[in-house]
Every structure is written in C-alpha cells, then in structure tokens.
C-alpha cells in the first residue's frame, strides 16, 4: 500500500487548512456581517449538493432532476431526530438515519428508472422527487404542509466546511477508483462499456446512490441551520438550482462545481438589494452564460489542470 503522506496530499491539506483559517478568522473576528454568513452557509450547502449531482450527471452521465427530493429526506430525518435529541449527536444520528433512508429510496428509484435514457430519465427522476415531496406534505410526522419549525441551529461554518472536504475527498477518490472509471466509461459510451464487460446498471446505481446520500447530508445541514422546513422548499425549482450550478461549473469538474456555487451565490447576494428584478437578472445571467459558455466554466477540467506543467501530477502509465 502506498503511503498516504505524499507531498501532494500534504500540499492539499495545507491549502485546505489555509482556506478554512481565513474564513474562520473572518467569521469569528466579526469581519463578515451576519447576512453574508447566511450566504456562506448556503453556498457551502449548495457545494455539497452540486458535488453529489455532478457525480450523477457529470461523471456518470445520468440526467437526474430529482436531487431536491433526496435533500428533503435528509432534512426531514435530521429535523425529526433533532426534535428528540437537540444536540450535535442528534444531528449526526439524524444525518445517518437520513442517509440510510435516502440510500433505500434512491435504490428504489434507481433500479427501474436508470434503464431510461436522457430526457426520459430526467422526467422520471423529477416525477419521483415530486412524489417524495407530496408524500412529505401528507405525512403526520413531517408536519404536513405547514412543515417543521423550531429546529435547533447547530450547523456552523466549520461543520459545513468539514463536510465539503469529506464530499470532495469521497468523490475525488471514487472517480479515480476502478468503479469511478467504470462510471466515466458509462458516460462516454454506454454500449461500448457494456460490451467491455462493465455492469452498467450497477455503476449507474452506485453513482446515483452516492450522489443522493450527499444530497441527504446537505439537507441535514440545511435543516439544522434555517430553523424551519417546508415541503415547498424542496420543489422542482430546488433541483433546478442545483442543476444550474453543476452545468454552470462544467459537468465532470469538481472544482467547477465549487466555483460555480460560489459565483452564483455571490451573484444572488449582490442582487439581493434589487429584490424586485433579482430573479429577472438571475434568469438573464443563466441564459447569457449558457449561450456564450455552453460547456460551463471549466468544461470537464479541474482547477489543477490550469497550474503550470511542472506542478501537475505526472500521468501514470500502467
């Protein structure tokens, strides 16, 4: 086994620590006003959602429009557990419960629908996420249409940051494993990869479930930050918001998703003072970005691909 303490991993650890310290000092030193802190947490949650969806759409090529449904499962599970145990342990238990339920639901959704292709898959996943929303709306335990409130506020910046880092590591390692390469081959050409002996259904389902579980984590963090949960929050538009981040960042680019979530978050924040025309400008921004940069900010490249040659990882030949 190779040592985990390579120079590369060390550099990344330092980079991550520096980014974290900058934000943490800025927040605890009250250099960032409260409204911006909400924006930072929202961006963080969006990053986790976008990373999960990017694994499904960008790396495995399966067009899912149902991400908000999985997020809502995570959010409601966390909120319900937190009502019994209003502390950090409760949040983690809730998160685990949410992930377990999400994994089961995602499996139920994935096995029949992933036989479908392209737009049909998109519409089927959209249908499932709406069914999840309507189910939540009609259940006793989730508070029906009124939703749940008085959820303890436990999500903090360090917590969100830790989960972003975990998601990046999980997805990055997954797509560089043999399973991940199988997923990418499914995206490139499903028939060809099938004829090479890859169990396409298995890998599509695997990517789908992992992505859904990340959405569930994001949902739990969301629930523990915003006090209230309403079924309408997790409608079709939420899935679209996440999809816009993924496509804007570039499908198949993790750093693209992160950057896109930040950029779109900042656009949203700056437009907040023009509340009346905010959505109009946001819509125009989406159209203009798509018309002039249809491949997204980074295409399928990562941010490290833009570094000078000598810093890049040497391509392994094997």
């Amino acid at each position, binding site marked *: 086994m190779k040592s985990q303490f390579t120079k590369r991993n060390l550099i990344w650890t330092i980079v991550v620590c520096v980014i974290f310290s900058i934000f943490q000092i800025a927040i605890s030193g009250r250099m960032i006003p409260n409204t911006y802190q909400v924006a930072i947490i929202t961006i963080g949650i969006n990053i986790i959602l976008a990373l999960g969806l990017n694994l499904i759409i960008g790396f495995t090529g399966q067009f899912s429009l149902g991400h908000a449904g999985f997020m809502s499962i995570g959010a409601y599970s966390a909120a319900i557990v937190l009502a019994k145990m209003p502390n950090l342990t409760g949040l983690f238990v809730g998160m685990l419960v949410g992930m377990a339920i999400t994994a089961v639901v995602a499996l139920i959704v994935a096995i029949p629908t992933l036989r479908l292709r392209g737009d*049909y898959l998109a519409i*089927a996943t959209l249908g499932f996420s709406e*069914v999840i929303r*309507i189910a939540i709306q009609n259940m006793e335990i989730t508070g029906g249409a009124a939703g749940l409130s008085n959820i303890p506020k436990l999500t903090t910046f360090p917590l969100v940051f830790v989960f972003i880092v975990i998601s990046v590591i999980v997805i990055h390692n997954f797509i560089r494993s043999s399973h991940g390469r199988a997923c990418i081959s499914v995206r490139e050409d499903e028939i060809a990869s099938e004829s090479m002996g890859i169990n396409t259904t298995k890998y599509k389902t695997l990517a789908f479930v992992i992505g859904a579980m990340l959405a569930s984590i994001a949902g739990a963090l969301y629930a523990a930050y915003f006090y209230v949960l309403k079924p309408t929050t997790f409608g079709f538009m939420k899935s679209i918001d996440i*999809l816009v981040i993924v496509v804007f960042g570039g499908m198949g680019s993790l750093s693209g998703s992160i950057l896109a979530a930040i950029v779109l978050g900042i656009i949203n924040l700056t437009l907040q003072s023009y509340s009346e025309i905010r959505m109009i400008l946001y819509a125009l921004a989406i159209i203009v970005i*798509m018309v002039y940069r*249809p*491949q997204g900010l980074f295409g399928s490249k990562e941010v490290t691909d833009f570094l000078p040659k000598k810093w890049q990882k040497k391509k392994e030949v094997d």
Partner: protein
Amino acid sequence: MTIFLQQLINGLSVGSIFALIALGYTMVYGIIKLINFAHGDIYMLGAYVGFFASTSLGLGFFPTMLLAMVICMVAGVLIEKIAYKPLRHASRITSLITAIGVSLFLEYAMMYFMGPNIRTYPADFFPREVYTFAGLQISNHQILIFVTSILLMIALQLIVKKTKIGKAMRAVSTDPDAAALMGINVNNTISFTFALGSALAGAAGVMIGMYYNSIDPLMGMIPGLKAFIAAVFGGIGIIPGAMLGGEAIGILETLASGYGFSMIKDAVVYLILIVILIIKPSGLLGKNVKEKV
C-alpha cells in the same frame, strides 16, 4: 356512477387544455429534441394577454383568443431565435438549462410588470351558464373549451399532414441534415413549429383564464410540467399522442380529486408517468426504436 360521469366531463375540458399545451411540447421536442420548459410560461403569457384584451380593450372571446395566439406566436419565435438557436448544436442539457432560464425570465418579468397578485377576467367576458342534464352538470365554458380545442387540433393536424410547411416539419423532425440537403429551410421550419406550438398555448391560456377565472405569473409551471408528462404519456414527438395524453392526464387528475384524493392528485399523475416510462418508455402511441451501435 354520476360522480364518475361528472368527473369525466370536467376531466375532458381540463384535459383539452393539457392537450393544447402538450402539443407545443411534443412538436418542439420532435423537431429539435428540446424540453422547452418555457412553454408553460407562454401559456401564462397567453392568459395575461387575454386579461389585457378583455379588460382594457373590452374584446369578446374569439378576438381575445386570436390576439393571445398572435402575441404568443411572436413571443415563441423570438425566444427560439434569441435563446435556443445559438445552442442548436450544444449538448441537450445546456439547451434545457437555457429553457429553464427563459422560463424564469418570463415568470419574473411578468411578476415585475403585473405584480404577483391574482387577477380575474371581467365578469361579462363570457358569462357562465350551467346546464343540468340527467343529474350531470355541464357549463357552456366546458363545451366551449372542448369544441375550440378539438377545432384547433384538427386545424393543426391538417397543417402538419396536408400543407407543404407541414411536410417540411415532418421531414426536419425525421432528419434535419437530410431535410436541409433536400432544400428545406430548416431554420424557418423550426420557427414555424415554435409559432404553432406557442399559438396553441396562448389559446389554452385564454381559455383557462376564463374557466378558472384566476391568473398569476407562476400559473404556467405546474400545468406546463403536467402537459409535458401528457406528451411523454402519449409518446413524445407524436401529435395524436399529445392529444390522447392530455385528455388522459386531465381525466385521471379530476377523477383522483373527485374521489377524495385531491391532496395527492399530483402524485397520481407523477406515479402514472413513472409507470408508463418503465413499462413503455416510448409512450402509448410510440414505436419502439431499435438501438443501433
């Protein structure tokens, strides 16, 4: 039994609206393989044009509907030229996001100009009368919606099957490159498709404004989604399929709410969609296309 027949009548008129919207989805999908999410908002635009024509201009039902159809037609063609045409060779997900952007733009621009509150058509626009027949109630609105929709669908079918431009539409949807080689102006044909679909959505908007008598800037979202489901249900790209799908979704939805499941009537529609997609993804009237390597 009376409840069933009554809901069937209600369902047929709601279904006609879905069918009219679904036709626009199915034609656009058939020709450029784009789920035009902004189509539901064209329908909303039609409803607002109808509101404007009936209150400010005091027009009657048919002139109002014609005006809405023309304005929606222009809007549809403009949207295609500005937003979709540059992306014709981009990936489908990119065009889809653009369509969502256009949809958001139309919704919130309308909200900015007209305000988010609900508006109603004037009371004398087309006075509602209810006829009772063997215990069943049927209003003149329902008859009007049903008959107008059928006439519009027949007109559409004639245009697509009998005219030269209709032939061009069918050719482009089969193979755009080959159609271009045969001297068909692909751009004009696509614009014409958008014009036809948008006109039908505009007509549907005016009729729903009259039927429910409440319109708001976000009214297009859910019917748009359901109409798309209707198009998939009947077999996307197939014109009679959209009509069939629209009526089927309308009837199923009203039956669900008629039998006391109104809370989950949307879920019923989505579940049916999922079942259809899993059993026969090409839709009720769709043909199975063999996959080639």
